[in-house]
């Protein structure tokens, strides 16, 4: 494979926006997670709706997953072993 034909590989997500992405994703996710927990606490045996619960939990875990990944990348863990030192 010719090196000249290739371009430098950049990350699919611009590293400059890691902080903002992290905050936004985690904030949205906290909202969904807290909604889920409040629903769990206030509903009784006869008032629960499984679909609503599953939907909230899925959306919450989706945002939480991407948010935590963004957080790891922001903190320069780059999803690999890296011993940080200040």
């Amino acid at each position, binding site marked *: *494979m010719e*090196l000249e*034909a*290739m*371009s*430098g*590989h*950049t*990350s*699919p*997500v611009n*590293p400059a926006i890691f902080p903002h992405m992290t905050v936004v994703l985690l904030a949205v996710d906290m909202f969904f997670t807290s909604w*889920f927990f409040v629903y*769990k606490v206030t509903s*009784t*045996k*006869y*008032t629960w709706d499984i679909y609503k*619960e*599953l939907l909230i*939990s*899925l959306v*919450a*875990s*989706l945002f*939480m*997953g*991407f948010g*935590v*990944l963004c957080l*790891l*990348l922001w903190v*320069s*863990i*780059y*999803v*690999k*072993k*890296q*011993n*940080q*030192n200040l």
Partner: protein
Amino acid sequence: MEAPAVHLLPLLLLFVPWALEPGSTSAEAPPLVNEEVRRTVDLSSHLAKVTAEVVLAHAGSDSSPHAASFLVALEPELEAQLAHLGVQVTGVDEETNSLEVQETKINGKSGRFFTVQLPVALDPGAEVSVVVEAIYTHVIQPYPTQITQSEKQFVVFEGNHYFYSPYPTKTQTMRVKLASPNVESYTKLGNPMRHNNLLDYGPFHDIPAYSQDSFKVHSENNSPFLTVTSMTRVIEVSHWGNIAVEENVNLKHTGAVLKGSFSRYDYDGWIDSGISSIRSFKTILPASAQDVYYRDEIGTIYTRHLLILDDSVEMEMKPRFPLFGGWKTHYIIGYNLPSYEYLYNLGDQYVLKMRLVDHVFDKQVIDSLTVKIILPEGARSIQVDSPYEISRAPDELHYTYLDTFGRPVIVAHKKNLVEEHIQDIMVHYTFSKVLMLQEPLLLVAAFSILFFTIIIYVRLDLSITKNPAAEARMKVACITEQVLTLVSKRLGLYHHFDKTVSRYKQSRDVSSLNSGKKSLETKHKALTSEVAVLQSRLKTEGSNLCDKVSEMQKLDTQVKELVLKSAVEAEWLVAGKLKKDIYIENKKLISGKRRELVSKIEHILDTL
């Protein structure tokens, strides 16, 4: 007894090449002759750098073949310590090109030989000038081998007065560059000239091939004799835009061993104390290095200075203690690099182009190097292009954050490296971009499992006895909640109908009003019947709330009457049967009554 032998040696060698000539050069090889050789032996550091500027001539007749390559030989005593051999030729436009060098074997001769490919084949009678550079490590030995802190370091180098070559040499000179003007002794062949820290030997004429004459010089050398005994370099590649490099370095001072004790008072007080010891050294890192850390087993070492320049990052590192002869230390240095400078890709093909070994300190000597390149999970068809020979160990697997089946690791070893070995290695591999999603999806799956566990856990009824009162209360609460939703829906219907009425007033469309009325009726009937069902359920539960619900139902019928009345009045207004001001008055009355009733309903709902 050795003196006569030394004198005999050149005589013996004069005969030997003629006897061996048919065997040393193969039948097809054209006879080459070194016309003029200018050797420089640089002994100013702990490396012996022997540079020979050779004018190579084709001495054959016109019928002999062209010379496409020529041989370079090494002295048998020094050949084991060779770290680097490079040959360059000065082109037409003054640019130097490196020539290809390959190690070969010559029948009947022991020792190492190298074949160098000439850019243009040499015609009979033509000449070409090449520069042969050889770097030897650990050949400059300290003598005396042990010194005290206040003494200076003296070293001995043993080499060859002549240019060791498979071809005879017409004229040659040798210049030795020493570390200091303080020379204890040196061999005198042919009346050498000494000036400052330079020794000039020669010119020597008509020296046959493979000639050796023992050369020895004993001089002062306080330059840092620092050696990296072993080094592990780990390069981790991440497709999220970062390459992390970590080097684990073991250093040793390979000069004269310290005899006696180390006195810190003397060391700090006198400039000349411990003159050959190493206080600090400078490492040059790649220009885009970030987050540089320098630490060892104890923790971070803060005696370091980082200087960020345009084309490099220089780190001046001071180990925790100065290094005297025989002393060792160990440290770890690491930094991050952006991936776009070293990782190239086209579609699924990726190429990593990085230095196999990087600068540790000037005039570095690395005895043993291990390089580990960790590629992202899912990298396949890995091919390695190294600039020089390396020995590869089998690939390993490395597990770290968010890994399921491990990252492939390329392991390579090499011994005896110097600064000239700082060259790029290319690693080709394929990686499908979809695999990058595996990392966030793993996190998402982990969190969903957490949530599902919580859902299941709350569902589980682990109580031993049933509590009937609590159960009844829960059921009632459930029903009232449903009632609330239904009633609010009903009230919403009224609002919706109000809007239809006002629209009718503007558009005068009787049919829309009628359809609105009809839909109100049907929906209202449905909701009321539902509320009635719930009311009966409440009754079966034995709750007193059903009375409140029935009261609310009555109020609701009144509200509905009022709403319908307002619709009728609007119709009359449009038809002209009713005067406007009377209509407005009536409307006010109706809306007042409605508001009262609605507030009463809401009050009841709050108490439910």
